[in-house]
């Protein structure tokens, strides 16, 4: 029997495994993709440092080697079953099942599918992209900045809260990282294309983290990014392929219309599909947001309603990389005290 079985080889799962290894416990990580790192593989830079995401991935690749952590790739967990003796049986897509004393759900989140906001025209209008698409663009090409039609954009708009804080999307919660991601990406656009005018349409700016407010101020003062308080109501395509935005400038208290050459939708977090699967197979409690419900928000943020079943990272809520890694380290301690108790 394994001490700890970790579901998900993103940064939360790997960090949990590394910390547990240091505490002397035997771990096994199951990752559904063909490589570790999860969403971070698709990201160019991290806020607020603007450091490359690959730095983090390289660090963990090195740790995995050093600590000889076992990872099974291409392995999707299909169900978690609690046994009478308190241990767990975990079934996978590879017709192998595993027995373990504890399980960590570090399976992360899904990005909101922007097509669900039909009025924003994602995958209908060529020049509408998501924040994730923009990260890919940054990753692939760092020299010239053009819109999907190949034009250097005169104006770019970022739309905050796409799929977050939105009754119509069924997501009442704030995704936490989108405001600062928009600020980071807006600065990057200005760096690549100084003549481009950049606008951020926001409902509230939630720049809560260390260094976030400073980055916001840098965007305003150094890069001339303009922040307009108002939620985008609809997008339509003009005859030349540019996009007409309709919002209210709520500070001016008047409707506002603007044409842009590129629109970036700041897509939020949603609970990973596997969360519902685990809920059904082992009865782990979920909150109204469909993420996993921690046993105690303040005092045991890694434990769940089921003894021996833990969480690490964004399976509980939207979290930044910073918060994810801290939550994962805390998971290792919680599991260690559970096993050695």
């Amino acid at each position, binding site marked *: 029997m394994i001490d700890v079985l970790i579901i998900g080889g993103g940064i939360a799962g790997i960090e949990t495994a590394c910390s547990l290894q240091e505490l002397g416990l035997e771990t096994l990580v199951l990752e559904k993709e063909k490589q570790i790192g999860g969403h971070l593989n698709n990201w160019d830079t991290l806020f607020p440092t603007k450091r490359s995401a690959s730095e983090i991935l390289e660090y963990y690749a090195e740790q995995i080697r050093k600590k000889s952590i076992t990872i099974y790739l291409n392995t999707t967990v299909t169900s978690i079953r609690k046994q009478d003796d308190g241990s767990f049986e975990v079934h996978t897509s590879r017709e192998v099942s595993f027995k373990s004393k504890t399980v960590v759900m570090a399976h992360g989140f899904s990005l909101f599918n922007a097509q669900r906001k039909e009025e924003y025209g994602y995958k209908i209008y060529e020049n509408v992209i998501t924040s994730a698409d923009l990260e890919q663009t940054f990753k692939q090409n760092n020299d010239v900045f053009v819109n999907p039609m190949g034009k250097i954009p005169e104006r770019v708009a970022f739309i905050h809260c796409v799929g977050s804080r939105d009754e119509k999307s069924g997501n009442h919660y704030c995704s936490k990282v989108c405001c600062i991601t928009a600020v980071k990406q807006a600065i990057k656009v200005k760096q690549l294309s100084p003549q481009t005018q950049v606008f951020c349409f926001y409902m509230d700016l939630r720049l809560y983290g260390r260094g976030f407010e400073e980055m916001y*101020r840098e965007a305003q003062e150094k890069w*001339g990014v*303009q922040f307009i*308080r108002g939620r985008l109501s609809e997008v339509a395509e003009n005859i030349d392929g540019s996009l007409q935005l309709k919002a209210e*400038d709520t*500070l*001016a208290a008047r*409707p506002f*219309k*603007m044409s842009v050459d590129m629109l970036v939708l700041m897509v939020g977090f949603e609970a990973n599909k596997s969360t519902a699967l685990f809920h059904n197979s082992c009865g782990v409690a979920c909150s109204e947001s469909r993420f996993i419900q921690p046993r105690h928000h303040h005092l045991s943020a890694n434990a769940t309603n089921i003894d021996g079943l833990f969480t690490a990272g964004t399976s509980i809520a939207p979290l930044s990389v910073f918060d994810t890694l801290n939550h994962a380290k805390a998971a290792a301690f919680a599991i260690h005290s559970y096993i050695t108790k």
Partner: protein
Amino acid sequence: MMKQFGYNSLKSRTIDYKNINTTLISYIIKNEPSFSSCISCGSCTATCSAANLTFFNIRRLNIQIRLGEFENIRQEIDKCMLCGKCLLVCPRGINTRNVIMLIKKGLVTFNLVE
């Protein structure tokens, strides 16, 4: 003919970004870059001596200038007594007194009011 119908078509109230006159805002930001960091918190207006007694509203001036709406600004701006209290309370450290001076100068330089 319009009288015969008893109604006419209305001018749109929508702010159309392409029609915005950005001369004054560009001039102010060039000479007082801190103006771009305004977050419309309103602490300037709350403390303003003129705002207590008149319609003068320095926070709203920021928005009007960004939207290129210069009507009333000339007469509004003269209500400022340049006491500098707004400068003391601004959380973003904007040199509001300099902004006022730049508005006055810019309106004349670019001939933005009759």
